Structure formats: structure tokens, C-alpha cells
């Protein structure tokens, strides 16, 4: 945290709205990759965060790139490199602007204040993201900070880094599937049917859990919880109420449509093989 020497402090501005940040999984991947590839003499990686500010004030961090820097006694940042990369990135996606910067390692150090000052010239109210790649606390902590100016009367004293809530929901990573992104080596991408199987197994497991819970409540082993009961009721009520014959007809119609398409595509494939044999086998001369 920043040095707090005087006993009397005055926060000049508290964050106006509850500023929060949302990080996309690609950013984490990028940062880790840059950390793994860092030159041997530097301990940490510094880089720029790109993204946009959503209308409700949340900062949406979507992309990032590393910037060569010098840390330690003297701190320096390769500004030209930073600008070049920014221009290149904006050629592809002009909507992504600088929203902050990141550094690896736990906590905020003294040099960070200077970097933060540089970035505050680039973007209004930049967000500082720290990614603990050293797993100091036994866990990888990712925190986001904004800087708040501490002033005594008229004099600027220091800048305090205040933590802001961070939303790490990884919807894209979920889409790809955590199995693929988690293990060091995946031998084969899962096909449609395998994925289907996995999803159905999960659904089955969930239904089993719910079953057991309901059984327990009925037998009095577990306290009943009204909210859960209401949820269950809503879920079951959301099944459309159709008479069995109408439902059967619906299902059978869909089944037949699918069979038709399957048949059609098999016929097309047979036709293709036949046509190709005829085309190349034709000997006119």
C-alpha cells in the first residue's frame, strides 16, 4: 500500500459509483503466457490492458499485451513499443482502448505508482490489475485496483490504491470447456456426441442430487428450505403442460423431421460418390 505518513488524512474523492471490473479469460491467459516467456533478468511482467467502459461504469477488460520495462532501482517503460502495439491492435479492433495496466506479483509496490501515473495520462482513471503468478498465498490471487488521490488540504500527498470488485466469470472459457483449458495436454478435441454425453451425465447427476434432497426433506432428515422448494416448484412448472397425445405428436414430428434430414444427407453423399466415379471414369477417347 502507499506510504501513509501523516496522521490526518483526507480522501478527496471517493469513487463516485461502485466501480468494478470484469476480466475476460483471454487476458489471464495472455498474462500467464507473457510471464512464462519473460526475459530471465526481470522478475515481473508489466503490460497494458485494453477494453472498454460499459455504460453502467464497469470496466470491461478484453485484451492485453506485454510491454518491455526496467524494474528495480530505476523504473522505465518502453513507451514507443507500447504505442506501436496500441496502434497495431487498434487497426484490428478500433473499439478497444486502454483501460489500465497489469503487473504480475502480489501486492502493489512503490514502482507501481510511477507506472500508474504514466497510464493515467493515457486513460482516465486506469485500472491496475495484479496477477499473482508466484502463488504466494498458496493460491493465485487476481486483484484490481484504482488509484485514489490522498491530499492534505491542497497538497497532493500520495495515491492510494483501492481495491475494486473484480468479476472473473469466464463465460468463454466455459464455452470451450474447462477440460480443454485446464489440463496440460488434451489429446483429442471432443466430438459432438462426446460433449453431448458429458452434458447429459451432468444433468443426470444434478437430477439425482435433487431427488436425494427431496427424499431427505420428506423423511425429515434435513431441514426444509422454502426457497429451494419454490425453485423446484418453478422448475417443474416450467415444463409445458401438454396432453400426452399432443406431446407425443410433437416429439414424433420432430423425430421424423430429423430422420428426413439424415436420409437426405445420406442420399446426397451417395450421389456425390456416384457422380464423381462417373465423371472421372468416363473414357471418351
Amino acid at each position, binding site marked *: 500500500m502507499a506510504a501513509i505518513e501523516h496522521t490526518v488524512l483526507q480522501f478527496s474523492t471517493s469513487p463516485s459509483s461502485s466501480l468494478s471490473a470484469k476480466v*475476460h479469460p*483471454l487476458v*489471464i*491467459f*495472455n498474462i*500467464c*503466457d*507473457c510471464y*512464462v516467456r519473460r526475459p530471465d533478468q526481470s522478475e515481473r511482467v508489466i503490460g497494458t490492458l485494453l477494453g472498454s467502459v460499459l455504460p453502467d461504469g464497469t470496466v470491461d477488460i*478484453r*485484451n492485453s499485451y506485454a510491454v518491455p520495462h526496467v524494474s528495480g532501482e530505476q523504473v522505465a517503460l518502453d513507451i514507443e*513499443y507500447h504505442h506501436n*502495439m496500441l496502434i*497495431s491492435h487498434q*487497426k*484490428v*479492433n478500433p473499439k478497444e482502448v486502454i483501460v489500465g495496466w497489469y503487473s504480475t506479483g502480489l501486492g502493489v509496490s512503490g514502482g507501481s505508482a510511477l507506472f500508474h501515473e504514466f497510464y493515467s495520462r493515457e486513460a482516465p482513471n486506469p485500472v491496475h490489475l495484479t496477477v499473482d503468478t508466484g502463488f504466494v498465498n498458496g493460491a493465485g490471487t487476481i486483484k484490481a485496483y484504482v488509484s485514489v488521490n490522498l491530499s492534505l488540504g491542497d497538497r497532493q500527498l500520495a495515491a492510494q490504491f483501492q481495491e475494486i470488485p473484480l468479476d472473473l*466469470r469466464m463465460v*468463454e472459457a*466455459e464455452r*470451450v*470447456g*474447462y477440460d*480443454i*483449458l*485446464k*489440463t*496440460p*495436454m*488434451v489429446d483429442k*478435441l471432443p*466430438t*459432438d456426441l462426446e*460433449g*453431448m454425453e458429458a*452434458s*447429459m451425465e*451432468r*444433468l443426470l*447427476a*444434478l437430477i439425482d442430487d435433487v431427488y436425494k434432497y427431496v427424499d431427505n426433506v420428506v423423511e425429515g432428515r434435513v431441514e426444509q428450505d422454502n426457497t429451494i422448494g419454490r425453485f423446484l416448484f418453478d422448475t417443474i412448472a416450467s*415444463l409445458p403442460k401438454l396432453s400426452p397425445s399432443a406431446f407425443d405428436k410433437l*416429439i414424433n414430428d*420432430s*423425430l421424423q423431421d*430429423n430422420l428426413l*434430414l*439424415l436420409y*437426405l*444427407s445420406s442420399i*446426397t*453423399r451417395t450421389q*456425390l460418390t456416384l*457422380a*464423381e466415379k462417373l*465423371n*472421372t471414369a*468416363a473414357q*471418351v*477417347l
Partner: protein
Amino acid sequence: MATPGARSFLQVAATEEVASPLRVVQIEGLVILKIIKHCKEFSPALVTGQLLGLDVGSVLEVTNCFPFPVREEDEEIEADGANYQLEMMRCLREVNVDNNTVGWYQSTLLGSFQTVELIETFMNYQENIRRCVCIIYDPLKSNQGVLALKALKLSDSFMDLYRTNNFTGEKLREKNLSWVDIFEEIPIKVSNSALISAFMTELEADTPVVQCDYDRLQLSTSPFLERNMEFLIECMDDLSMEQQKFQYYYRNLSRQQAQQQAWIQKRRVENMARKAAGDEPLPEEDPSNPVFKPLPEPSRLDSFLITNQISNYCNQINGVTGQSFSRLYLTKALHEN
């Protein structure tokens, strides 16, 4: 390639180094996420980007990638495009990213990517790099809960044939090449660094059900199937046009042959008359006669590509209907209880 060196290397230099065939493409999770992000953001427009990595033995490692800006057809923007590429590669080199181009990626809409441009881009890349691969990502299909990522490569026999630009029926029969042999699909392996797998393990969502499950268990697939069918029908139209071209060609060919026969007969009769009169017999062939002009056989390349596309659509339809079956039976079982 082995460079001619000292005498002791002579044996190595003498044996031509045979590149081990590409068996697997190893992609990093980072690259997959980047590709997905780029293609999704610009969907439905089609976008491309460059792949960077290493070529190791029979594995092609893809470790990073960067997107290409949308290019307009303009002279000065072309030079800009090349500059952008150089700039990106230089900047990435400074942060120790592999600076080696190993191919490119592009997004597609429901699998309509087998075009002549793809082949030409492949040939362009092949001149500079020994092994390159093209990764195709389909954002529409991925909405169904499947990761639609494919790695493609042109087969070697097809590349030789393309260089000679000769796609007649005879040549193809000679090489035993059919439309399945144009593109080779290479299996993809995904690798992640230990650091990132540690982070992912920790950040994994606690809920037992994830977004991809929601996508997969959705009952409505008709928009997807409808578009597939639309594309399929269009392709069938194209294919029938190509086949008509062939029919036209064959009809012309047989007509020309009949004309040739007639002309030769006439010549023979004339020659007999001349022999009887004691004159020199005229040659039986006359290359300047338009009857003998060889007709150009239409190239089969287009029909092959279209056939490839059609088979792709068919496969997709098969896959999706298969999934729908499971879903429908699931719903049925659910309702019965």
C-alpha cells in the same frame, strides 16, 4: 535442409531429407481463446489472422497468433497490411514470442470455406514455409456447444497437380485423386502451460453446470439446420451447373470426333482417287483444319471443391440431427415421468 558441409556430411547431404509427415497440430489454449474472440467479435463477417509457432518433427506447435485487420481492395492498403504484419512480428519478438509463421486461421460460416482462394493462399504460404496449416473456426456451429475447430492442409499429391494446373480426367485417374484427397484434416491436440492450468483449476466455476451444457441441451436447432439446408441447396445448384458444363463438353467432343471421322473418310476417298490418277496422296491429318482443334477440357477443380462443400454440409447435418435425437429422447423420458 542439409547444407553442403565438410566431407563427413556428404552422406547426409546426399540423402535428401524427407520431411516427416505432419501428424498432429498442437495448439495452446491461449491461441484457441484468441481465435474464438476474434472470430466471434466480427461474426458474421469472415476474418483471418496469422498463426505463430514452431515446427518440431511430426508435430506442428502453434503458440501464438494475431489477427489481421479487415483489408479493403486498395493498393496502398495492401502495403499497409504487410507493414502491419512486420510490425506485429517485430513487437512480439521483443517479448520472446515465437516469431515463426506456421500458417493462418480463418473463420467460416457453416463450413463454406473450400474455395479456390484457400488453395491459392496455401500455395503462397507453401513457397515460403515448408509446413503450414490452416485452422478453420466456425462460430455458428460453436453456438451449438461444440468446439468447431479444424486444422487443414493440402495433400501433397494435390499440390503437385495444382502446380501443373492440369485437372483433366486422365491426369486425375492417373494419380488416383478424388475429391476427398484435396484437403487433409489433421488432428488437434491442446496444450497448456502449467501456470495457466493452475490458474484455471482455481478459477473453475463452482457450479456443476457450465455454459456449454446450456448450449448443448437447447432444443431448438431449426435455424441452424435451415441455414445448412439453404447452403446445401445452393451448392447443389452449382454442382449441377458444373455437370452441365461437362455434358456440354462431352457432346461437343463426340460431335467433333464424328466430324473428324467424316473428314478422314473424305480424305481417304480423295487419296484413292489421286492414287488412281497417279498423284501424291494427301496426308490424312491436317492440323490447321479447325475440325482437329483439340477442345479444352473444363477443369474439374471447381466441381471437386463444390463436392467437398456439399459433403461438409451433409456431415454437419448428420451431426446435428444425431444430437437432436438424443435431446428429443431425453425430453420424452422427462415427460413420461
